């Protein structure tokens, strides 16, 4: 009973942390919404966005969120091999997403549209950059989990950590959906 009790304490605590992160993203969305037209001689949204590329990114992140869910199920079933494969899938898709995003940034900077150009570009880089940073932290966390998994059998604390990670990963995917809709589609 004690095991279960402090289990849902951790979940509630982590969930409230996720909510504070959501509010931070809300502030970034509000700032982006207010500053999206202040392009100030710099390029506006349509000119610099490449929609098919972003669609690919969205699909990749969606699938990695899906594989992460399956990984948790595999962990609950205790099937270590399946768990490993799904986690590696999530890891690979996560890195693919991060790589595509960084290459998009690199291309923008190469063309001279850096964040010092205009308020719109500043808020664009910050919103996408913060999300990218969260993805990087998530991937780093996943690598730590994989190392931990290799050294010990599947026990309740591993499952707890995995479920926490999957909450974080789903949360990131939801934030990306809103980025995809508000930043890219509306532009």
């Amino acid at each position, binding site marked *: 009973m004690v095991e279960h009790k402090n289990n849902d304490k951790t979940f509630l605590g982590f969930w409230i942390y996720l909510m*504070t992160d959501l509010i931070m993203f809300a502030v970034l969305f509000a700032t982006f919404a207010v500053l999206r037209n*202040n392009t*100030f001689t710099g390029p506006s949204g349509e000119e610099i966005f490449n929609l098919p590329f972003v669609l690919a990114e969205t699909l990749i992140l969606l699938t990695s969120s899906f594989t992460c869910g399956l990984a948790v199920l595999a962990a609950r079933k205790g099937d270590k091999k399946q768990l490993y494969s799904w986690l590696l899938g999530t890891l690979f898709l996560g890195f693919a997403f991060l790589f595509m995003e960084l290459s998009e940034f690199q291309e923008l900077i190469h063309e001279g549209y850096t964040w*010092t150009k205009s*308020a719109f570009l500043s808020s664009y880089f910050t919103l996408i950059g913060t999300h990218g940073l969260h993805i990087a932290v998530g991937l780093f966390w996943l690598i730590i989990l994989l190392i931990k998994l290799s050294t010990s059998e599947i026990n309740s604390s591993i499952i707890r950590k995995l479920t926490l990670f999957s909450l974080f990963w789903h949360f990131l995917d939801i934030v990306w959906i809103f980025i995809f809709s508000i930043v890219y589609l509306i532009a």
Partner: protein
Amino acid sequence: MEDLFGKLTLQALPHEWFTIGGAISMTAGGLGAILLLTYLKRWKWLWTEWLTSTDPKKIGVMYITVAVFMLFRGVLDAVLLWLHQVLAGGGQGYLTADHFQQISTAHGVIMVFFVAMGLLFGLMNIIVPLQIGARDLAFPFLNSLGFWLYVAGAILINIFFVFGGEFAATGWLAIAPLSGLEFSPGVGVDYWIWSLQISGLGTLIGGINFIVTILKMRAPGMTLMRMPLFVWTTLCSMILVVSVFPILTMTIILLNLDRLLGMHFFTTGFGGNPMMYTNLIWMWGHPEVYILILPAFGIYSEIVATFSGKRLFGYTTAVVAVVAVTLLSTLVWLHHFFTMGADANVNAFFGIMTMIIAIPTGAQIFNWIATMYKGKIRLTTPMLWFLGFVATFTFGGMAGVMLAIPPIDYQVHNSLFLVAHFHTMAIGGALFGLFAGISYWFPKVFGFKLNEKLGQYAFWCWLVGFFTSFVPLYILGFMGVTRRLDTYDPSTGWQFLFLISLLGAGIIALGIGFQLLQIAVSILKRKENQNTTGDPWDGRTLEWSTSSPPPSYSFAVIPTVDDRDAFWTMKQAGKPISKPIFVDIHAPKNTASGIYISAFALIIGFSLVWHIFWLTVLGFLGVIITVIVRTFNDDTEYTISASEIAKNEEKRGIYG
């Protein structure tokens, strides 16, 4: 090689008289403490007993001690400002304009972030777990980490006395574009940014910790509607912390990106929108002042009920009032910038919302009066602080309602009338509440009562001092004196009122002297008024059921609760407390990783202020490694054996 230390060059080292003065007094105090500790050979005791402890009662006492030190600095800043304003009639006061603005910013930040939040978190750490019948908070390690981040923020804000540079000269909320690179190129605003980020993070962690504790760890039988009201106000205050501190953190990150990477969120040119900063910072700003005042309401409800010997009148309406204030406080922030030019509908909407908050507060005050009705009132020091609260807060509330009407706010915005208003709310409301809380729960924490006579002298000095210093400010505000004014010509006749305010500040300083004397005398005479029963005031809530000072495990056996005022119903039932069968208790071990992480955070903050970027990278690595080491070690608990508990409880001799 020369930019190895970024902007930390020789000229940056302290050279103004007041930074050197500050540095000398701080290092002297520090050295004195180190010598005393080595002389008494108490280093080991300090480290194991206090610094690395995860016991919320100890962390609470540490919070209050740090907050009291910061109170000294805050009041000293205030007296420096007032003295300058008195001398500045026509002539040049002893401070330059830039120094004056720096001290006024430091005064604001220290009083709100490090005194009020510190005292508040201290009291909550000690009392809330005891009141809900829990042995500890939900996440003991995070509690210690939250405290040490708060201390790291406090150190960073005072470190410029030693390492030089200057502090932000922009007002306590560093409103853009003044705080941008264009108008504040110095390191001042960076100190402001990083000390607020680090201590803000600590507050956020504390917020999450308390919400989970109150929701998940109440004693069996204690439903939400049977919780003491101080727990309700803590819960609501922490919900506000969790809802709005992320807004502060993100706004400061945006300001920092503007300054560090040259972005254009709040700059005057390049499409930046400085008004967005004001909008965002006040979206956090107003709920912040409710975060400070709500627990004070909780403390007043506890005190009035206990010292009238009666149940709190209208418990449900008090809860409804507190929750209503919590929800409404997030809908009012525009009354801080009515004068920015929004149209009449917007101003009127936010003005009306601000007034609606006065309704639950008014009902709350009437509830307290009704609690005293038909009671047996004992006018002890906590009750005196409550009467002081009623005397000041009602004036402040009326001024608040006036400020909520936009056309009046056009006249008195950023004037001394506004300054007097929020000082009435902060001192009359929050600080009096915290002083009442400290004198009410002091016997519970240390086992002996504070000296009553000295406490009453201190109260009278604070009250008379408060009125003498802030009523003139109300009048000065009506005379057209703006806030943060460092010079004026004597023909305006303001000097006389500033003099009276300085006099008032002197009386307040006397009050603080009495409080220190009170603590010293009470410690000396602690044998006489030692309180063995654990219930010095005939209390009503669970914390009085433990011995005072309570053992590290707080409750030998978690009590079951079947009604409000749990301890009072137990006493009324009068059934002799049968000797329970004791069982082993798992308590969290001491941990130093909270200190290490905060030390690294301090290094990160300091290096980012001075742009020593290699040090920042080292700091981050330090944090990551400590966190990983922490997650890898699993034995974080030790058990207190049942026999040990039995021996301890025997000494109390309360079992029939």
